[in-house]
């Protein structure tokens, strides 16, 4: 069974608690339902014995629910107190912004204290609580990784928080859990839990600027990227932030309309979990994103010749 995105395969403490709630309520509810149906069957027998209404009204009608619900309330209060505290006082914070229809993820580089911006993948170290500071830049979204924790809304103009802790390394799929428009269903992401050392190496790599375009094809791809004015919405650190683009950026910070592409080639998927990431899907996406995710803000590019489009896709694939 595919447990990439499953509430039934908890991989973190919070998800395990929610999982337990689910089974207790489900099994308890089933037992009560079967009990009531059995009583109903008894009552519908011919030659039924007369019963004493007092016992059934006060016993099954009042005492039983009071005892069961009180026990359940006490147990769930005690258990949910063990859910990870929503506090930013954690060793590690990651900021996640919900957008139509993708996720912007920001880290702070411990070495330079600079911001590292990526998209649609949240890398976390295994076994450590990580605080996600969350907001939205357009409409209300909701971040949900069923295998790790409960869902939490992302609200424009407010910061909400969620603590994630993955107990075993792996890739966990998450999904927007609040209807946010036309492509709500194609707004997925992955949480990738890595051992601490691998995570540190990953983060250090992300802090580097984009790989240089050192072959003719890659240069052609990079030049086409700039000629198409992709930098109006996308950033490639080391490419779009050198003059004359740095000036432009200071005037209007529109470069966050689309995902930061500095290391786009290293991501598993493009278009927020819609397509596997390789030059073929990148080319298809550049040529006509509207066909793949109708309503996205990126316009189609119908004026590129085949060689240029392939070079552009190859260039983006190479940005690892």
């Amino acid at each position, binding site marked *: 069974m595919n447990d990439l995105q499953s509430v039934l395969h908890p991989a973190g403490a919070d998800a395990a608690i929610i999982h337990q709630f689910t089974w207790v309520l489900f099994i308890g509810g089933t037992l009560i339902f079967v009990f009531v149906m059995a009583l109903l069957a008894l009552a519908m027998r011919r030659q039924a014995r007369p019963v004493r209404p007092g016992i059934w009204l006060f016993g099954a009608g009042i005492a039983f629910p009071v005892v069961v619900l009180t026990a359940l309330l006490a147990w769930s209060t005690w258990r949910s107190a063990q859910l990870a505290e929503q506090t930013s006082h954690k060793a590690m914070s990651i900021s996640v912004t919900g957008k139509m229809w993708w996720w912007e993820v920001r880290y702070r580089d411990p070495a330079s204290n600079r911001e590292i911006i990526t998209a649609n993948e949240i890398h976390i170290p295994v076994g450590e609580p990580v605080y996600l500071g969350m907001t939205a830049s357009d409409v209300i979204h909701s971040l949900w990784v069923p295998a790790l924790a409960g869902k939490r809304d992302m609200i424009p103009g407010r910061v909400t928080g969620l603590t994630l802790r993955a107990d075993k390394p792996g890739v966990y799929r998450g999904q927007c859990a609040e209807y946010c428009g036309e492509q709500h269903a194609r707004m997925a992401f992955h949480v990738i839990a890595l051992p601490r050392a691998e995570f540190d190496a990953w983060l250090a790599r992300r802090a580097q600027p984009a790989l240089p375009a050192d072959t003719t094809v890659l240069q052609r791809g990079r030049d086409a990227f700039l000629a198409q004015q992709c930098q109006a919405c996308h950033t490639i650190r080391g490419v779009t932030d050198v003059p004359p683009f740095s000036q432009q950026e200071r005037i209007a910070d529109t470069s966050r309309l689309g995902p930061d592409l500095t290391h786009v080639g290293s991501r598993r998927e493009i278009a927020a979990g819609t397509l596997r990431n*390789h030059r*073929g899907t990148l080319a*298809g996406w550049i040529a006509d994103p509207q066909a793949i995710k109708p309503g996205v803000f990126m316009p189609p590019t119908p004026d590129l010749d085949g060689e240029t489009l392939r070079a552009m896709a*190859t260039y983006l694939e190479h940005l690892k």
Partner: protein
Amino acid sequence: MNICQYDRLHPAWRTGAMLLCAVLASGCGSQDKSSRVEGGDPERGRLLTQQYQCAACHFIPEVQGTNGDAGPSLQYMGRLSYIAGSIPNQPENMIRFLQNPPAVKPGTLMPALGISEQEARHMAAFMYTLK
């Protein structure tokens, strides 16, 4: 004598002949269904087509997911006369084209995805089921 004219045969022979005819007939049937591409398995080809996410650019009714329109629809690929509008639609051409489209048709939008020869064989087999 035609083995299927078994009216005057002994019942035991007749049963045997009927079975033999059934086996032969089913053989004929499966030959029709088997792929036009030697060593190509259409079902594995369909899965590969899904894995490589060809649907990012092409409309393929049998493949789940997105239906891009950067490339032409592959709905009737199996009965088209030409690949990419200019190359005769034959298994060997299809296999070469899938492995390295720009080498076969310079200027095409379709990139080479590093598809192996065996993978291309399966995918070509799948293409010929699209009719």
